[in-house]
Protein backbone atom coordinates (compact mmCIF):
# COMPACT_ATOMS: atom_id res chain seq x y z
CA UNK A 1 0.00 0.00 0.00
CA UNK A 2 1.35 3.38 -1.01
CA UNK A 3 2.20 5.94 1.64
CA UNK A 4 -0.70 8.33 2.48
CA UNK A 5 0.39 10.93 5.07
CA UNK A 6 -2.35 11.63 7.61
CA UNK A 7 -1.93 15.41 7.73
CA UNK A 8 -2.59 15.97 3.98
CA UNK A 9 -5.80 16.27 1.99
CA UNK A 10 -6.34 14.61 -1.42
CA UNK A 11 -8.24 14.79 -4.71
CA UNK A 12 -9.86 11.88 -6.52
CA UNK A 13 -7.30 12.55 -9.29
CA UNK A 14 -4.41 11.76 -6.92
CA UNK A 15 -3.06 15.18 -6.05
CA UNK A 16 -2.22 16.02 -2.45
CA UNK A 17 -2.69 19.39 -0.74
CA UNK A 18 -0.97 20.70 2.37
CA UNK A 19 -1.82 23.76 4.46
CA UNK A 20 1.24 25.97 4.65
CA UNK A 21 0.18 29.04 6.68
CA UNK A 22 -2.36 30.76 4.43
CA UNK A 23 -1.00 28.96 1.38
CA UNK A 24 -1.59 25.49 -0.04
CA UNK A 25 1.23 23.33 -1.32
CA UNK A 26 0.32 20.84 -4.06
CA UNK A 27 1.85 17.70 -5.53
CA UNK A 28 0.92 14.21 -6.69
CA UNK A 29 0.63 11.21 -4.37
CA UNK A 30 2.98 8.27 -3.94
CA UNK A 31 0.25 6.10 -5.46
CA UNK A 32 0.03 8.37 -8.53
CA UNK A 33 3.77 8.32 -9.19
CA UNK A 34 3.83 4.52 -8.79
CA UNK A 35 1.04 4.19 -11.35
CA UNK A 36 2.71 6.59 -13.78
CA UNK A 37 6.16 5.03 -13.66
CA UNK A 38 9.26 7.10 -14.37
CA UNK A 39 8.30 10.75 -14.67
CA UNK A 40 10.20 12.44 -17.51
CA UNK A 41 8.57 15.85 -17.69
CA UNK A 42 6.38 18.12 -15.61
CA UNK A 43 4.68 21.15 -17.12
CA UNK A 44 3.57 23.73 -14.60
CA UNK A 45 1.76 27.07 -14.87
CA UNK A 46 3.63 30.34 -14.42
CA UNK A 47 3.80 32.18 -11.10
CA UNK A 48 0.87 34.58 -11.05
CA UNK A 49 -1.42 32.26 -13.05
CA UNK A 50 -4.88 31.46 -11.70
CA UNK A 51 -5.85 27.87 -11.00
CA UNK A 52 -9.32 26.51 -10.35
CA UNK A 53 -10.33 23.62 -8.11
CA UNK A 54 -10.85 20.38 -10.07
CA UNK A 55 -9.53 22.05 -13.25
CA UNK A 56 -6.36 21.18 -15.10
CA UNK A 57 -3.27 23.18 -14.11
CA UNK A 58 -0.51 21.27 -15.84
CA UNK A 59 0.75 18.01 -17.21
CA UNK A 60 2.88 15.20 -15.89
CA UNK A 61 4.51 12.96 -18.46
CA UNK A 62 5.96 9.55 -17.74
CA UNK A 63 7.51 6.96 -19.99
CA UNK A 64 4.05 5.40 -20.19
CA UNK A 65 1.59 8.25 -20.43
CA UNK A 66 0.77 11.91 -20.21
CA UNK A 67 -1.69 12.91 -17.50
CA UNK A 68 -3.35 16.17 -16.62
CA UNK A 69 -2.83 17.63 -13.19
CA UNK A 70 -5.91 18.91 -11.34
CA UNK A 71 -5.82 21.60 -8.75
CA UNK A 72 -7.22 20.77 -5.29
CA UNK A 73 -8.09 24.43 -4.65
CA UNK A 74 -8.71 27.68 -6.55
CA UNK A 75 -6.38 30.62 -6.28
CA UNK A 76 -3.22 32.24 -7.54
CA UNK A 77 0.06 30.41 -8.10
CA UNK A 78 2.67 32.05 -5.86
CA UNK A 79 5.50 29.54 -6.27
CA UNK A 80 6.39 26.67 -8.58
CA UNK A 81 9.00 23.94 -8.17
CA UNK A 82 11.49 25.00 -10.84
CA UNK A 83 13.79 22.06 -9.94
CA UNK A 84 11.38 19.66 -11.67
CA UNK A 85 12.33 21.04 -15.08
CA UNK A 86 15.82 19.58 -14.69
CA UNK A 87 14.97 16.71 -12.31
CA UNK A 88 11.47 15.42 -13.03
CA UNK A 89 12.43 12.10 -11.36
CA UNK A 90 12.17 13.92 -8.01
CA UNK A 91 8.41 13.34 -8.30
CA UNK A 92 9.08 9.60 -8.11
CA UNK A 93 11.75 9.81 -5.44
CA UNK A 94 10.03 12.15 -2.98
CA UNK A 95 6.42 12.86 -4.04
CA UNK A 96 5.39 14.50 -0.75
CA UNK A 97 8.64 16.41 -0.20
CA UNK A 98 11.07 17.69 -2.85
CA UNK A 99 8.66 16.53 -5.57
CA UNK A 100 6.07 19.22 -4.73
CA UNK A 101 4.73 21.18 -7.71
CA UNK A 102 2.90 24.39 -6.79
CA UNK A 103 2.14 26.72 -3.93
CA UNK A 104 -1.23 28.41 -4.31
CA UNK A 105 -2.75 31.31 -2.43
CA UNK A 106 -6.34 30.10 -2.17
CA UNK A 107 -9.19 32.41 -3.05
CA UNK A 108 -11.80 30.49 -1.06
CA UNK A 109 -11.62 28.60 2.23
CA UNK A 110 -14.57 26.30 1.64
CA UNK A 111 -12.81 24.18 -0.99
CA UNK A 112 -10.38 22.73 1.54
CA UNK A 113 -13.17 20.91 3.34
CA UNK A 114 -14.34 19.33 0.08
CA UNK A 115 -11.02 17.48 -0.30
CA UNK A 116 -10.61 13.85 0.69
CA UNK A 117 -9.09 13.01 4.06
CA UNK A 118 -6.21 10.56 4.25
CA UNK A 119 -8.62 7.83 5.28
CA UNK A 120 -11.01 8.55 2.40
CA UNK A 121 -8.12 8.61 -0.05
CA UNK A 122 -6.79 5.30 1.27
CA UNK A 123 -10.21 3.78 0.67
CA UNK A 124 -10.19 5.20 -2.87
CA UNK A 125 -6.88 3.64 -3.80
CA UNK A 126 -7.82 0.38 -2.07
CA UNK A 127 -10.66 0.18 -4.61
CA UNK A 128 -8.20 0.59 -7.45
CA UNK A 129 -7.93 4.35 -7.56
CA UNK A 130 -11.21 5.27 -9.24
Amino acid at each position, binding site marked *: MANVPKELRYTREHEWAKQDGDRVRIGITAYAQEQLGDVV*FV*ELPKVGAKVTAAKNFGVV*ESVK*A*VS*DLFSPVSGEVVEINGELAQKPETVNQDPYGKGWMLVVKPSSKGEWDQLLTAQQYEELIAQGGH
Partner: protein
Amino acid sequence: MPSRYIANTPDEQKKMLGVIGAGSVEDLLVKIPPKARLGRPLGLTPALAETDLIRHMSALAARNANAESHVSFLGAGSYDHYIPSPINHMILRGEFFTAYTPYQPEASQGTLRTIYEYQTMIAELTGMDVANASIYDGASSLAEAALMAHSVTERKEIVLSRAVHPLYKRVTATYCEGPGLRLRDLPAPDGVTDLAAARQLVTTKTAALVIQTPNFYGCLEDVAAAAELAHAAGALLVVVADPVNLGVLEGPGKLGADIVVGEGQGLGVPASFGGPNLGVFAAKTELVRRMPGRLVGATVDRDGKRGFVLTLQTREQHIRRAKATSNICTNVALCALMATIYMATLGRRGLVKVGELSTAKAHYAAERLAKVPGVSLRFPAPFFKEFALKLPKAPDRLLPRLVKQGFLAGVPLKNFDRSLADCLLVAVTEKRTKAEIDAFAAALEKAVA
Protein backbone atom coordinates in the same frame (compact mmCIF):
# COMPACT_ATOMS: atom_id res chain seq x y z
CA MET B 1 -17.02 -10.49 -68.05
CA PRO B 2 -14.68 -10.52 -65.05
CA SER B 3 -12.75 -7.30 -64.68
CA ARG B 4 -9.00 -7.38 -64.69
CA TYR B 5 -8.95 -4.87 -61.84
CA ILE B 6 -11.73 -6.21 -59.61
CA ALA B 7 -10.50 -9.11 -57.55
CA ASN B 8 -13.67 -11.18 -57.21
CA THR B 9 -15.14 -13.24 -60.05
CA PRO B 10 -18.85 -13.39 -61.00
CA ASP B 11 -18.96 -16.82 -59.30
CA GLU B 12 -17.56 -15.39 -56.09
CA GLN B 13 -20.00 -12.49 -56.23
CA LYS B 14 -22.91 -14.92 -56.61
CA LYS B 15 -21.68 -16.93 -53.65
CA MET B 16 -21.37 -13.84 -51.44
CA LEU B 17 -24.80 -12.58 -52.45
CA GLY B 18 -26.19 -16.05 -51.66
CA VAL B 19 -24.76 -15.93 -48.12
CA ILE B 20 -26.60 -12.69 -47.32
CA GLY B 21 -29.72 -13.73 -49.26
CA ALA B 22 -29.56 -11.06 -51.99
CA GLY B 23 -30.45 -11.91 -55.57
CA SER B 24 -28.11 -9.46 -57.27
CA VAL B 25 -25.78 -6.53 -56.64
CA GLU B 26 -28.67 -4.34 -57.73
CA ASP B 27 -30.70 -5.67 -54.76
CA LEU B 28 -28.12 -4.16 -52.41
CA LEU B 29 -28.96 -0.69 -53.69
CA VAL B 30 -32.77 -0.68 -53.36
CA LYS B 31 -32.63 1.55 -50.29
CA ILE B 32 -31.17 4.39 -52.33
CA PRO B 33 -34.02 6.57 -53.67
CA PRO B 34 -34.32 6.23 -57.47
CA LYS B 35 -34.00 9.97 -58.04
CA ALA B 36 -30.60 9.88 -56.34
CA ARG B 37 -29.42 7.25 -58.82
CA LEU B 38 -28.13 7.76 -62.34
CA GLY B 39 -30.66 5.44 -64.06
CA ARG B 40 -28.35 4.61 -66.95
CA PRO B 41 -24.84 3.21 -67.31
CA LEU B 42 -21.95 5.66 -66.78
CA GLY B 43 -20.96 7.14 -70.14
CA LEU B 44 -17.48 5.66 -70.15
CA THR B 45 -15.64 4.90 -73.36
CA PRO B 46 -14.71 1.24 -73.82
CA ALA B 47 -11.62 0.06 -71.95
CA LEU B 48 -8.29 0.46 -73.74
CA ALA B 49 -5.64 -2.21 -74.00
CA GLU B 50 -2.65 -1.45 -71.77
CA THR B 51 -0.37 -0.36 -74.64
CA ASP B 52 -3.13 1.87 -76.05
CA LEU B 53 -3.73 3.34 -72.62
CA ILE B 54 -0.04 4.13 -72.13
CA ARG B 55 0.08 5.77 -75.57
CA HIS B 56 -3.04 7.80 -74.74
CA MET B 57 -1.70 8.96 -71.34
CA SER B 58 1.71 9.79 -72.81
CA ALA B 59 0.06 11.92 -75.49
CA LEU B 60 -1.93 13.78 -72.82
CA ALA B 61 1.18 14.26 -70.66
CA ALA B 62 3.15 15.58 -73.65
CA ARG B 63 0.74 18.51 -73.84
CA ASN B 64 2.09 19.76 -70.49
CA ALA B 65 5.04 22.10 -70.45
CA ASN B 66 7.43 21.08 -67.69
CA ALA B 67 10.97 21.59 -66.46
CA GLU B 68 12.22 18.80 -68.74
CA SER B 69 10.59 20.08 -71.91
CA HIS B 70 11.11 23.81 -71.25
CA VAL B 71 13.67 26.13 -69.69
CA SER B 72 12.08 26.94 -66.36
CA PHE B 73 12.23 30.23 -64.49
CA LEU B 74 9.34 29.19 -62.25
CA GLY B 75 9.66 29.60 -58.50
CA ALA B 76 7.33 31.06 -55.87
CA GLY B 77 8.11 28.18 -53.54
CA SER B 78 8.86 25.37 -56.00
CA TYR B 79 12.18 25.44 -57.86
CA ASP B 80 13.98 23.69 -60.68
CA HIS B 81 17.10 22.70 -58.75
CA TYR B 82 19.17 19.80 -60.06
CA ILE B 83 18.18 16.37 -58.75
CA PRO B 84 21.25 14.11 -58.51
CA SER B 85 20.67 10.64 -59.97
CA PRO B 86 21.46 8.67 -56.77
CA ILE B 87 18.16 9.95 -55.34
CA ASN B 88 15.93 8.05 -57.74
CA HIS B 89 18.14 4.99 -57.56
CA MET B 90 18.00 4.86 -53.77
CA ILE B 91 14.35 5.69 -53.15
CA LEU B 92 13.22 2.93 -55.52
CA ARG B 93 14.71 0.31 -53.22
CA GLY B 94 12.00 -1.93 -51.76
CA GLU B 95 13.02 -1.07 -48.20
CA PHE B 96 12.29 2.59 -48.80
CA PHE B 97 9.73 2.95 -51.56
CA THR B 98 6.57 3.79 -49.67
CA ALA B 99 4.85 7.00 -48.69
CA TYR B 100 4.12 5.38 -45.33
CA THR B 101 6.66 4.96 -42.62
CA PRO B 102 6.99 1.60 -40.93
CA TYR B 103 7.71 2.98 -37.50
CA GLN B 104 8.27 -0.23 -35.52
CA PRO B 105 11.91 0.12 -34.48
CA GLU B 106 12.49 -3.63 -34.51
CA ALA B 107 11.64 -3.73 -38.22
CA SER B 108 12.62 -0.27 -39.49
CA GLN B 109 16.10 0.73 -38.39
CA GLY B 110 17.04 1.83 -41.93
CA THR B 111 14.05 4.15 -42.39
CA LEU B 112 14.30 5.56 -38.87
CA ARG B 113 17.99 6.20 -39.36
CA THR B 114 17.45 8.14 -42.58
CA ILE B 115 14.81 10.26 -40.83
CA TYR B 116 17.21 10.87 -37.94
CA GLU B 117 19.87 11.99 -40.41
CA TYR B 118 17.32 14.19 -42.18
CA GLN B 119 16.44 15.86 -38.86
CA THR B 120 20.11 16.33 -37.99
CA MET B 121 20.97 17.96 -41.32
CA ILE B 122 17.88 20.20 -41.29
CA ALA B 123 18.70 21.31 -37.74
CA GLU B 124 22.27 22.14 -38.80
CA LEU B 125 21.19 24.03 -41.92
CA THR B 126 18.51 26.06 -40.18
CA GLY B 127 20.73 26.76 -37.17
CA MET B 128 18.19 25.21 -34.81
CA ASP B 129 18.50 22.58 -32.05
CA VAL B 130 15.89 20.12 -33.26
CA ALA B 131 13.92 19.36 -36.43
CA ASN B 132 10.93 17.06 -36.82
CA ALA B 133 10.60 14.24 -39.35
CA SER B 134 8.86 16.71 -41.75
CA ILE B 135 5.24 17.65 -42.37
CA TYR B 136 3.25 18.11 -45.57
CA ASP B 137 4.62 21.28 -47.12
CA GLY B 138 5.83 24.79 -46.41
CA ALA B 139 2.29 26.08 -45.95
CA SER B 140 1.25 23.50 -43.35
CA SER B 141 4.60 23.95 -41.58
CA LEU B 142 3.91 27.66 -41.18
CA ALA B 143 0.35 27.06 -40.04
CA GLU B 144 1.59 24.59 -37.42
CA ALA B 145 4.21 27.10 -36.30
CA ALA B 146 1.46 29.67 -35.70
CA LEU B 147 -0.48 27.19 -33.56
CA MET B 148 2.69 26.25 -31.71
CA ALA B 149 3.52 29.90 -30.98
CA HIS B 150 0.01 30.33 -29.59
CA SER B 151 0.42 27.28 -27.38
CA VAL B 152 3.85 28.38 -26.11
CA THR B 153 2.97 32.02 -25.39
CA GLU B 154 -0.77 31.62 -24.65
CA ARG B 155 -1.27 34.72 -26.83
CA LYS B 156 -3.76 35.03 -29.67
CA GLU B 157 -2.29 37.28 -32.36
CA ILE B 158 0.02 36.34 -35.20
CA VAL B 159 1.70 39.23 -37.02
CA LEU B 160 2.42 38.11 -40.56
CA SER B 161 4.47 40.03 -43.08
CA ARG B 162 2.80 40.67 -46.41
CA ALA B 163 6.00 39.39 -48.01
CA VAL B 164 5.32 35.86 -46.70
CA HIS B 165 4.04 33.49 -49.42
CA PRO B 166 0.34 34.42 -49.88
CA LEU B 167 -0.73 30.77 -50.14
CA TYR B 168 1.06 29.91 -46.88
CA LYS B 169 -0.84 32.78 -45.34
CA ARG B 170 -4.17 31.39 -46.54
CA VAL B 171 -3.44 27.94 -45.09
CA THR B 172 -2.36 29.59 -41.84
CA ALA B 173 -5.59 31.59 -41.73
CA THR B 174 -7.56 28.36 -42.10
CA TYR B 175 -5.65 26.67 -39.26
CA CYS B 176 -6.05 29.73 -37.03
CA GLU B 177 -9.82 29.88 -37.39
CA GLY B 178 -10.52 26.98 -35.00
CA PRO B 179 -8.55 28.26 -32.00
CA GLY B 180 -9.68 31.83 -32.78
CA LEU B 181 -6.28 33.34 -33.50
CA ARG B 182 -6.12 36.74 -35.14
CA LEU B 183 -3.81 37.30 -38.10
CA ARG B 184 -2.45 40.82 -38.36
CA ASP B 185 -1.14 42.08 -41.65
CA LEU B 186 2.30 43.65 -41.63
CA PRO B 187 3.04 45.85 -44.67
CA ALA B 188 5.96 45.15 -46.97
CA PRO B 189 6.30 48.16 -49.26
CA ASP B 190 9.15 47.90 -51.79
CA GLY B 191 9.21 44.14 -51.37
CA VAL B 192 10.63 44.11 -47.84
CA THR B 193 8.87 43.85 -44.48
CA ASP B 194 8.37 47.23 -42.78
CA LEU B 195 10.03 46.62 -39.42
CA ALA B 196 9.12 50.10 -38.17
CA ALA B 197 5.46 49.13 -38.63
CA ALA B 198 6.25 45.83 -36.90
CA ARG B 199 7.29 47.75 -33.80
CA GLN B 200 3.74 49.10 -33.55
CA LEU B 201 1.99 45.84 -34.41
CA VAL B 202 4.01 43.41 -32.27
CA THR B 203 2.71 43.81 -28.71
CA THR B 204 2.19 41.79 -25.53
CA LYS B 205 -0.76 40.18 -27.37
CA THR B 206 1.48 38.83 -30.13
CA ALA B 207 2.27 35.11 -30.11
CA ALA B 208 4.58 35.30 -33.11
CA LEU B 209 6.03 37.60 -35.71
CA VAL B 210 6.33 35.77 -39.04
CA ILE B 211 8.73 36.76 -41.79
CA GLN B 212 10.15 34.87 -44.76
CA THR B 213 13.68 35.21 -46.11
CA PRO B 214 14.30 35.39 -48.98
CA ASN B 215 10.66 36.45 -48.97
CA PHE B 216 7.95 35.73 -51.52
CA TYR B 217 9.38 38.43 -53.81
CA GLY B 218 12.88 36.99 -53.50
CA CYS B 219 14.19 39.82 -51.29
CA LEU B 220 16.28 39.30 -48.17
CA GLU B 221 14.88 40.29 -44.76
CA ASP B 222 16.69 41.50 -41.64
CA VAL B 223 16.13 38.44 -39.44
CA ALA B 224 18.23 39.67 -36.50
CA ALA B 225 16.30 42.94 -36.24
CA ALA B 226 12.99 41.09 -36.46
CA ALA B 227 14.14 38.70 -33.71
CA GLU B 228 15.07 41.56 -31.45
CA LEU B 229 11.75 43.32 -31.77
CA ALA B 230 9.70 40.11 -31.44
CA HIS B 231 11.59 39.07 -28.31
CA ALA B 232 11.30 42.54 -26.78
CA ALA B 233 7.52 42.00 -26.81
CA GLY B 234 7.81 38.43 -25.49
CA ALA B 235 6.71 37.02 -28.86
CA LEU B 236 8.37 34.24 -30.85
CA LEU B 237 10.01 34.86 -34.20
CA VAL B 238 8.95 32.39 -36.89
CA VAL B 239 11.08 32.45 -40.02
CA VAL B 240 10.09 30.82 -43.31
CA ALA B 241 13.25 29.80 -45.16
CA ASP B 242 14.18 27.57 -48.08
CA PRO B 243 16.78 25.09 -46.77
CA VAL B 244 18.51 24.75 -50.16
CA ASN B 245 19.63 28.39 -49.79
CA LEU B 246 21.16 27.82 -46.38
CA GLY B 247 24.51 26.64 -47.68
CA VAL B 248 25.13 30.33 -48.36
CA LEU B 249 22.67 32.27 -46.21
CA GLU B 250 23.03 32.18 -42.42
CA GLY B 251 20.69 29.73 -40.65
CA PRO B 252 17.79 31.78 -39.24
CA GLY B 253 18.27 30.07 -35.87
CA LYS B 254 21.70 31.69 -35.58
CA LEU B 255 20.01 35.08 -36.10
CA GLY B 256 17.46 34.59 -33.34
CA ALA B 257 14.54 32.67 -34.88
CA ASP B 258 12.61 30.51 -32.40
CA ILE B 259 10.94 28.37 -35.06
CA VAL B 260 12.16 27.87 -38.63
CA VAL B 261 9.78 26.41 -41.20
CA GLY B 262 9.87 26.17 -44.95
CA GLU B 263 9.39 24.31 -48.16
CA GLY B 264 12.08 21.68 -48.68
CA GLN B 265 11.15 20.80 -52.28
CA GLY B 266 14.43 22.28 -53.54
CA LEU B 267 16.32 19.51 -51.73
CA GLY B 268 16.03 16.93 -54.48
CA VAL B 269 12.23 16.66 -54.71
CA PRO B 270 10.74 17.15 -58.20
CA ALA B 271 8.32 20.07 -58.59
CA SER B 272 5.68 17.58 -59.82
CA PHE B 273 3.11 20.25 -60.76
CA GLY B 274 2.90 21.40 -57.13
CA GLY B 275 3.38 18.39 -54.88
CA PRO B 276 3.95 16.21 -52.93
CA ASN B 277 6.22 18.64 -51.16
CA LEU B 278 8.34 18.64 -48.03
CA GLY B 279 7.38 20.65 -44.96
CA VAL B 280 10.46 21.60 -42.97
CA PHE B 281 10.02 22.33 -39.27
CA ALA B 282 12.74 23.12 -36.73
CA ALA B 283 12.72 24.67 -33.27
CA LYS B 284 14.74 25.40 -30.18
CA THR B 285 15.19 22.62 -27.62
CA GLU B 286 13.09 24.33 -24.96
CA LEU B 287 10.09 24.29 -27.32
CA VAL B 288 10.42 20.65 -28.36
CA ARG B 289 7.42 19.39 -26.37
CA ARG B 290 5.20 21.87 -28.21
CA MET B 291 6.58 20.88 -31.61
CA PRO B 292 4.14 19.12 -33.97
CA GLY B 293 4.83 16.00 -35.97
CA ARG B 294 6.93 12.92 -35.67
CA LEU B 295 10.37 12.90 -34.13
CA VAL B 296 13.03 10.19 -34.38
CA GLY B 297 15.62 9.91 -31.64
CA ALA B 298 18.82 7.92 -31.18
CA THR B 299 19.13 5.54 -28.25
CA VAL B 300 20.85 2.30 -27.25
CA ASP B 301 19.34 -1.17 -27.02
CA ARG B 302 19.85 -3.50 -24.05
CA ASP B 303 23.19 -4.62 -25.46
CA GLY B 304 24.34 -1.02 -25.65
CA LYS B 305 24.11 -0.89 -29.45
CA ARG B 306 22.99 2.34 -31.10
CA GLY B 307 19.47 2.35 -32.49
CA PHE B 308 16.68 4.69 -33.59
CA VAL B 309 13.13 5.04 -32.32
CA LEU B 310 10.23 7.46 -32.45
CA THR B 311 10.53 9.71 -29.45
CA LEU B 312 8.34 12.13 -27.48
CA GLN B 313 5.25 10.35 -28.82
CA THR B 314 3.43 11.47 -25.70
CA ARG B 315 2.87 14.80 -27.52
CA GLU B 316 0.96 13.03 -30.24
CA GLN B 317 -2.66 12.26 -30.99
CA HIS B 318 -2.62 8.52 -30.43
CA ILE B 319 -1.58 9.14 -26.81
CA ARG B 320 -2.72 12.64 -25.95
CA ARG B 321 -5.95 12.55 -27.97
CA ALA B 322 -7.63 15.96 -28.12
CA LYS B 323 -4.79 17.59 -26.19
CA ALA B 324 -2.06 16.60 -28.65
CA THR B 325 0.32 19.28 -29.90
CA SER B 326 -1.18 18.99 -33.38
CA ASN B 327 -3.32 16.84 -35.63
CA ILE B 328 -0.31 15.85 -37.67
CA CYS B 329 1.07 12.47 -36.71
CA THR B 330 2.70 11.52 -39.95
CA ASN B 331 5.41 12.89 -42.22
CA VAL B 332 6.24 12.86 -45.92
CA ALA B 333 8.79 10.11 -45.44
CA LEU B 334 9.64 9.53 -49.10
CA CYS B 335 10.20 13.24 -49.82
CA ALA B 336 12.22 13.55 -46.61
CA LEU B 337 14.30 10.61 -47.83
CA MET B 338 14.92 12.40 -51.14
CA ALA B 339 16.08 15.44 -49.19
CA THR B 340 18.32 13.29 -46.99
CA ILE B 341 20.02 11.71 -50.00
CA TYR B 342 20.26 15.13 -51.64
CA MET B 343 22.00 16.71 -48.65
CA ALA B 344 24.27 13.71 -48.14
CA THR B 345 25.18 13.59 -51.86
CA LEU B 346 25.97 17.29 -52.15
CA GLY B 347 27.53 17.68 -48.74
CA ARG B 348 28.57 20.99 -47.27
CA ARG B 349 30.56 22.11 -50.32
CA GLY B 350 27.89 21.07 -52.78
CA LEU B 351 25.19 23.01 -50.97
CA VAL B 352 27.39 26.10 -50.85
CA LYS B 353 27.99 25.72 -54.59
CA VAL B 354 24.26 25.38 -55.36
CA GLY B 355 23.58 28.58 -53.43
CA GLU B 356 26.47 30.50 -54.95
CA LEU B 357 25.63 29.47 -58.51
CA SER B 358 21.91 30.17 -58.06
CA THR B 359 22.43 33.63 -56.68
CA ALA B 360 25.17 34.53 -59.20
CA LYS B 361 23.05 33.38 -62.14
CA ALA B 362 19.96 35.10 -60.75
CA HIS B 363 21.88 38.37 -60.53
CA TYR B 364 23.21 37.97 -64.05
CA ALA B 365 19.67 37.25 -65.28
CA ALA B 366 18.20 40.24 -63.42
CA GLU B 367 20.79 42.56 -64.92
CA ARG B 368 20.33 41.11 -68.39
CA LEU B 369 16.51 41.14 -68.29
CA ALA B 370 16.33 44.67 -66.85
CA LYS B 371 18.16 45.85 -69.99
CA VAL B 372 15.21 44.79 -72.14
CA PRO B 373 13.43 48.02 -73.16
CA GLY B 374 10.40 48.65 -70.93
CA VAL B 375 11.42 45.96 -68.43
CA SER B 376 12.73 46.81 -64.95
CA LEU B 377 13.31 45.28 -61.53
CA ARG B 378 10.22 45.97 -59.45
CA PHE B 379 11.96 46.16 -56.04
CA PRO B 380 15.30 47.75 -55.18
CA ALA B 381 16.09 45.47 -52.19
CA PRO B 382 18.85 42.81 -52.29
CA PHE B 383 17.53 39.46 -53.53
CA PHE B 384 18.84 35.90 -53.60
CA LYS B 385 17.72 33.66 -56.47
CA GLU B 386 14.36 35.18 -57.37
CA PHE B 387 13.15 38.67 -58.30
CA ALA B 388 10.08 40.52 -59.51
CA LEU B 389 10.22 42.03 -63.00
CA LYS B 390 7.95 44.87 -64.06
CA LEU B 391 6.81 44.32 -67.65
CA PRO B 392 5.43 46.78 -70.20
CA LYS B 393 2.74 44.30 -71.33
CA ALA B 394 0.36 42.13 -69.30
CA PRO B 395 2.28 39.00 -68.21
CA ASP B 396 -0.76 36.85 -69.00
CA ARG B 397 -0.41 37.78 -72.66
CA LEU B 398 3.35 37.32 -72.82
CA LEU B 399 3.58 33.95 -71.10
CA PRO B 400 1.90 31.79 -73.78
CA ARG B 401 4.18 33.29 -76.43
CA LEU B 402 7.25 32.50 -74.38
CA VAL B 403 6.02 28.95 -73.69
CA LYS B 404 5.88 28.41 -77.46
CA GLN B 405 9.53 29.44 -77.62
CA GLY B 406 10.50 26.95 -74.93
CA PHE B 407 10.48 29.16 -71.82
CA LEU B 408 8.47 28.91 -68.61
CA ALA B 409 9.07 32.59 -67.97
CA GLY B 410 7.93 32.93 -64.36
CA VAL B 411 4.92 33.29 -62.07
CA PRO B 412 2.60 36.28 -62.72
CA LEU B 413 1.98 38.13 -59.46
CA LYS B 414 -1.50 39.33 -60.44
CA ASN B 415 -3.15 36.37 -58.72
CA PHE B 416 -1.46 37.19 -55.42
CA ASP B 417 -1.47 40.98 -55.36
CA ARG B 418 -3.53 43.19 -57.71
CA SER B 419 -1.11 46.08 -57.29
CA LEU B 420 1.55 43.89 -58.91
CA ALA B 421 -0.56 42.98 -61.95
CA ASP B 422 2.25 44.01 -64.32
CA CYS B 423 4.87 41.91 -62.52
CA LEU B 424 6.42 38.53 -63.14
CA LEU B 425 8.29 36.58 -60.46
CA VAL B 426 11.41 35.06 -62.03
CA ALA B 427 13.50 32.36 -60.31
CA VAL B 428 16.95 31.27 -61.44
CA THR B 429 18.63 28.13 -60.14
CA GLU B 430 22.10 26.68 -60.66
CA LYS B 431 20.67 24.68 -63.57
CA ARG B 432 20.21 27.68 -65.84
CA THR B 433 23.05 28.37 -68.26
CA LYS B 434 24.26 31.70 -69.55
CA ALA B 435 23.06 30.68 -73.02
CA GLU B 436 19.57 29.93 -71.69
CA ILE B 437 19.39 33.25 -69.85
CA ASP B 438 20.59 35.18 -72.90
CA ALA B 439 18.09 33.38 -75.15
CA PHE B 440 15.32 34.10 -72.65
CA ALA B 441 16.23 37.80 -72.60
CA ALA B 442 16.15 37.87 -76.41
CA ALA B 443 12.77 36.13 -76.52
CA LEU B 444 11.37 38.52 -73.90
CA GLU B 445 12.67 41.49 -75.86
CA LYS B 446 10.81 40.32 -78.96
CA ALA B 447 7.66 39.55 -76.97
CA VAL B 448 7.40 42.99 -75.37
CA ALA B 449 8.40 44.94 -78.52
